[in-house]
């Protein structure tokens, strides 16, 4: 066991000591630029290549760069001197891979590789396919580039502006540009019966600007490559495009994808960035040991047609005429488009609020209606109840008690007619019984409905109630009338009478009072009734939570008439129940 562990540690130690040795030799890559460091589209390509390579290789890269700047030093003796210089330089630093970017660099490397770095792999990147020497890929080399479809450029222009009669080709005067000028003259040949092509290449850039500012109608500007003008001024093609765009009175087209947004209208465009990325992938394969010649040459095709919406708008080019699968970029959103989310969110919030308000209003209305219905129903219930009781009371009073009285009278008459003393005595007992029965029925009738309210009015009814209470309960209950109250509507009278009855019943039951008082006075166009006692009192807030049936019915009766009931009480401080009921129509 112990033996095995020692062995394992030893192996691990060996592994760890080997790792720094492996990481100590970064891959050496020499990039050969065609022009200076600010020459789009070549710099667009090289930037994408370098960043992809360093990010994706996964190990350290030692990048070295040289620039031919062939545009400036095209003379043969200058080229020889440059080769000499490179030769010296390469004795100190031998690359694992040489990457020429662009056609001028590619042609240079193809010409001098046997002399400068015979053993080293070469990756031709961003080179125009038709400029690649036929035998360039035979030994230890790979290719990622493009093949610019020159007739396609003319086709794209004519698709955008079918009535174009004049295509102005703005191009520089360097060797590569001269090559392209010649290539285009040949490539555009089939269109010359439709369109005349003007090559603005032998004038300085300022003149070019002046020229494009005064173009006749139905003109179109094409900018294939602009590196150096005839006066020897090196131009940054992207900056040049911006200035041309500002000056020109006709639409402009280019070749490269990155120009979209700088002023070109658009079409099938070549993407230098994609070529750079693809080149980096091939470079990585080579650096990882794949034989370069086994990697098939890769021609990156143009993108699907892409257009700048602003240019389409500016030149009134309809989107309907664009080829299928086109993509329109830089679409300037309308106010709606720009703030659509805000509009929608705002409308949504407004909508929700409206919905909430409506829902709440509807609920409120429903509740109010339900309350009204409940009040109405409560009122009708009380009224029906009272009416039924009054009917029963009348029945008892008008019929039963009257018949009993009649019997008593008959008995009295019979008694008088009898001479037999004992018989008369019997009849007298019968008469007394009838009298007591009659009294009881009358009392029952009165309990059901106090006919005194109709006969004598509310004031006498309340006074009688107080007297009856005093006699029955042996608690003196005084009735106080402040104002004369003549006629009180039946509903109000029965309400206040019942409140008094209930309040006095509570006094008798719970209060342990020594005195009580019922007072009636006019107040605020209504009647104010107060039933006071000096008894034990209670906490009305507790009562309110679980009102007794008596209190609840008092409240309900008063509420139904649109009045208010208030209870003023505290434990040990007596109780006042106050009811105010309006006298509708001021009938007092």
């Amino acid at each position, binding site marked *: 066991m112990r033996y095995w562990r020692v062995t394992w540690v030893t192996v691990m130690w060996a592994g760890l000591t080997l790792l720094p040795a492996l990481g100590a030799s970064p891959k050496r890559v020499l990039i050969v630029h065609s022009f200076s460091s600010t020459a789009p589209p070549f710099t667009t390509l090289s930037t994408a290549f370098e960043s992809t390579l360093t990010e994706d290789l996964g190990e350290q890269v030692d990048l070295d760069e040289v620039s031919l700047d062939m545009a400036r030093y095209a003379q043969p003796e200058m080229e020889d001197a440059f080769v000499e210089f490179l030769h010296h330089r390469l004795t100190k630093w031998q690359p694992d891979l040489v990457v020429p970017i662009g056609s001028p660099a590619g042609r240079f490397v193809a010409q001098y590789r046997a002399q400068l770095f015979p053993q080293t792999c070469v990756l031709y990147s961003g080179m125009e396919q038709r400029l690649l020497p036929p035998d360039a890929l035979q030994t230890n080399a790979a290719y990622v580039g493009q093949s610019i479809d020159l007739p396609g450029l003319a086709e794209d222009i004519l698709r955008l502006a079918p009535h174009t009669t004049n295509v102005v080709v703005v191009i520089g005067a360097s060797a590569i540009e001269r090559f392209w000028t010649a290539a285009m003259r040949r490539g555009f040949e089939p269109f010359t019966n439709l369109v005349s092509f003007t090559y603005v290449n032998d004038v300085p850039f300022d003149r070019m600007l002046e020229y494009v500012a005064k173009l006749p109608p139905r003109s179109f500007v094409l900018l294939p490559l602009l590196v150096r003008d005839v006066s020897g001024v090196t131009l940054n093609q992207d900056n040049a495009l911006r200035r041309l765009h500002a000056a020109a009175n006709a639409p402009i087209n280019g070749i490269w994808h990155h120009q979209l947004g700088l002023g070109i209208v658009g079409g099938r465009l070549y993407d230098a960035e994609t070529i750079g990325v693809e080149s980096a992938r091939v470079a990585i394969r080579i650096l990882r040991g794949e034989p370069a010649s086994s990697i098939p040459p890769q021609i990156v095709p143009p993108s699907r047609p892409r257009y700048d919406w602003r240019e389409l708008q500016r030149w009134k080019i309809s989107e309907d005429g664009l080829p299928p699968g086109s993509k329109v970029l830089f679409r300037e959103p309308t106010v709606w488009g720009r703030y659509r989310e805000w509009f929608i969110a705002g409308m949504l919030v407004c909508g929700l609020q409206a919905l909430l308000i409506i829902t709440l209003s509807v609920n409120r209305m429903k509740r109010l209606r339900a309350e009204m219905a409940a009040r109405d129903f409560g009122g009708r219930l009380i009224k029906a109840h009272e009416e039924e009781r009054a009917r029963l009371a009348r029945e008892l009073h008008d019929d039963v008690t009257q018949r009993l009285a009649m019997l008593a009278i008959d008995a009295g008459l019979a008694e008088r007619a009898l001479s037999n003393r004992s018989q008369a005595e019997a009849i007298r007992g019968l008469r007394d019984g009838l009298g007591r029965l009659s009294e009881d029925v009358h009392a029952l009738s009165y309990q059901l409905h106090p006919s005194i309210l109709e006969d004598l009015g509310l004031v006498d009814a309340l006074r009688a109630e107080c007297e009856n209470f005093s006699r029955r309960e042996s608690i003196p209950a005084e009735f106080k009338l402040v104002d004369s109250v003549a006629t009180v509507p039946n509903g109000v009278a029965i309400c206040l009478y019942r409140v008094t009855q209930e309040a006095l019943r509570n006094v008798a039951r719970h209060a342990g009072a020594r005195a009580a008082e019922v*007072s009636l006075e006019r107040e605020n166009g209504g009647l104010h009734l107060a039933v006071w006692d000096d008894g034990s009192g209670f906490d009305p807030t507790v009562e309110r939570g679980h009102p007794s049936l008596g209190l609840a019915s008092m409240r309900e009766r008063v509420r139904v008439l649109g009045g208010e009931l208030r209870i003023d009480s505290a434990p040990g401080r007596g109780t*006042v129940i106050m009811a105010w009921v309006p006298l509708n129509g001021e009938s007092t």
Partner: protein
Amino acid sequence: MSRPRVLLADDHRMVAEGLTRLLQPEFEVAGVVEDGVALIAVAKKLSPAVIVADITMPHMNGIEALTHLKRDNPQVKVVFLTMHQDAAYARRALDAGASGFVLKHSAPAELVMAVRAALEGKTFITPALAGEVLNAIRLGPKKAKDPVAQLTSRQREILQLLAEGRSAKEIADALGISSRTVESHKYQMMEALNLHHSAELIHFAIKHGIVEI
């Protein structure tokens, strides 16, 4: 000598018949009416010596009819015969100038006595209620020993607030009534207590412990 003429007013025909038989031996029942309005009309025409009337009757009750009759002829004599064994009814009847108050079921024993008393210018009250009615008369309008007791609960409530220094407006807001109502309560209290100034009212409240200071 002819029997004194009596007019009967009762909307219960059968009762009226029984009463007629009860009265006939001693009095002449000159007529029977069934409501208060008819009573006034017939009484004016017949000028009976005594009217025996129920209180609860259609159209106009007996007491109201008596009030009308008294206005024309203060000498009119009415004995009420009623089911209401209630001192309030009796008192109201006597206030209106009734000569008697008899309960219907006591009629065989008391009605003839009551009519006789009426003819003699006396007043008969059924013994069942006499005590109660007399008590009320004896006590009369309350002789208030405690002046505070003359006030109603509502008045005391308002007086307490006034004595605490609240304005009529504040009290009105607190009680949910108008300031005018508060002023009217104040005026009524001053009248009931025979006071002449608001200051006296506050003084009264403090003196009688309605407000603690």
